[in-house]
């Protein structure tokens, strides 16, 4: 498979006075699955739509294999993209694919091949209107694969998948990337794609907040201590008095305190006479690192 990177450089998109994408730069490398993450409204879909030529950039550039999307002679054979929705409910999966097949020079056999690749052969003759969200996501991926591309651009493709679906998507994209493909997968939930991605690009309010490998993102997680007590009011008072900056009540009777050791928390609880039923060291969750980077407060 020919290797093509996705490069976004100083990309800006303004709608009137609203800046949807703000001087954004990042790359997605061949052989890697890159998670493009951020809260709803962060500018993910807009960025991906600019990348594939559906939306015009105000400034900056977004290229695939060094060229803009429309500069490729047959872009559908280079880049496979899918956005949410995008199905006529009255068509079957096979009819949907065959309607687009001529545009990428795909045969009827190729349509059946991609249906099989996403495990949709049995549903191929059913109308899309009756599909579950997970089946639509599979058909979206099949549509993206139609032209046998080396780059996949997938908008929220893990959204609504059950754990088995997420596991399937992971192995599918892993295989695609291992054979030299580039995958850019957007999601508003890190937890949904945490098992799938190699690299992360995190944006908020249209601007880049973080880009690294997933391993480097994990390294940002601070150690934390989980404290469980049956005295819920006393626990809340204790956390407020002793760890006002770093402690949060996760739910009644359970607190999480970041950046300290279990020994420190245990000693303080003993000194304050708090009844403790559980005391354990646990890393800060990756999700809370993500929420911290995007500036969205954890609602716990």
């Amino acid at each position, binding site marked *: 498979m020919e290797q093509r990177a996705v490069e976004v450089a100083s990309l800006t998109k303004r709608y009137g006075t609203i800046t949807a994408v703000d001087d954004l730069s990042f790359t997605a490398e061949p052989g890697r699955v890159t998670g493009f993450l951020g809260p709803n409204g962060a500018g993910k879909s*807009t960025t991906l739509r600019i990348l594939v030529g*559906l*939306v015009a950039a105000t400034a900056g550039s977004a290229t695939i294999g060094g060229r803009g999307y429309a500069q490729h002679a047959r872009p559908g054979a280079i880049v496979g993209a899918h956005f949410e929705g995008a199905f006529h409910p009255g068509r079957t999966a096979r*009819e949907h694919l065959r309607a687009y097949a001529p*545009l990428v020079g795909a045969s009827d056999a190729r349509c059946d091949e991609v249906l099989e690749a996403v495990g949709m052969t049995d549903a191929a003759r059913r109308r899309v209107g009756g599909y579950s969200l997970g089946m639509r996501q599979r058909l979206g991926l099949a549509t993206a694969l139609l032209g046998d591309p080396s780059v996949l651009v997938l908008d929220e493709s893990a959204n609504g998948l059950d754990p088995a679906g997420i596991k399937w998507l992971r192995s599918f994209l892993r295989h695609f990337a291992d054979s030299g493909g580039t995958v850019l997968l957007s999601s508003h939930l890190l937890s949904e794609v945490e098992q799938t991605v190699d690299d992360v690009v995190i944006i908020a309010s249209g601007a880049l907040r973080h880009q690294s490998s997933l391993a480097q993102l994990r390294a940002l997680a601070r150690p934390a201590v989980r404290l469980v007590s049956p005295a819920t009011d006393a626990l809340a008072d204790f956390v407020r008095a002793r760890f006002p900056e770093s402690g949060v009540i996760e739910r009644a009777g359970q607190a999480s305190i970041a950046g300290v050791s279990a020994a420190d928390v245990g000693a303080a609880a003993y000194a304050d006479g708090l009844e403790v039923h559980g005391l354990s060291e646990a890393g800060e969750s990756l999700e809370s690192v993500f929420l911290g980077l995007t500036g969205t407060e954890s609602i716990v």
Partner: protein
Amino acid sequence: MSAAITSELRKLRSTRLWWVLLISMAVGVAFITGSIAFSFAFADELGGTSATGEPVMMDPLETARTVYSLPVSFGYVFPVILGALAVTSEFRHRTIDTTLLLAPSRARVIAAKFIAVLPFALLYGVVGMASGVAVGAGALMLGGEPTGLDSVEVWQMLGMSVVALTVWGVVGVGFGSALTNQVVVIVVLLGWTQLVEPIVRVALAFIEPVAGAAKFLPGAAGEAMAGASFYTSVGAGDLLSPWAGFAVLLGYAAIAGVIGWLVTFRRDIA
């Protein structure tokens, strides 16, 4: 370009819309043509008068021609809706994303839709005319009027009527491109074709300085291609020549298509 046309043909063929509309057209045209043909054929018994108060004293061949123009006068809404929905359903169901991803040239997508609607609209023309002529000729025969089906002139007119209905499908694609909201398009099309244009045509006929303008309205241009009109037979204005009507109707399609390209297709698809 041929790939884009094949793609559009497959899109049209793979939903229920085209045959549901086609059956509706055959039934609707038969009903309207039948009702009016019977009232013409039995005008003597019913004591019918025209809109101007004169007794209906039409040349029998003219009566037949007017009856055979009814599928165009009242049936053109079906191919026009088919054409419009070929564009608007892409926006309604967001399939426009995939369409433009795989065919980034937006002008080419519109052009492919203009061409792909032709065979379908032609089928609508043939079926609509067959339905109208079968019922209309039957009614005329029952009323003892000549059917005119032995006249070459009538057959030429029927042929042009099929072409007129075909062109209406193309106008629909232009209209759908200019106004991509499906609900708005359906409401505007039904309102315009069933209510506004008929009223405007009748009203314009009575306003002397602008009386000539009515024949340039799209519905009148379509009827001009058929060479006869229920409206003109009841005294509401006159018609252009068939080929002038053809040109005017294509003009509407082209203008709508260009507006669609400028207004919608050049914009961001977000």
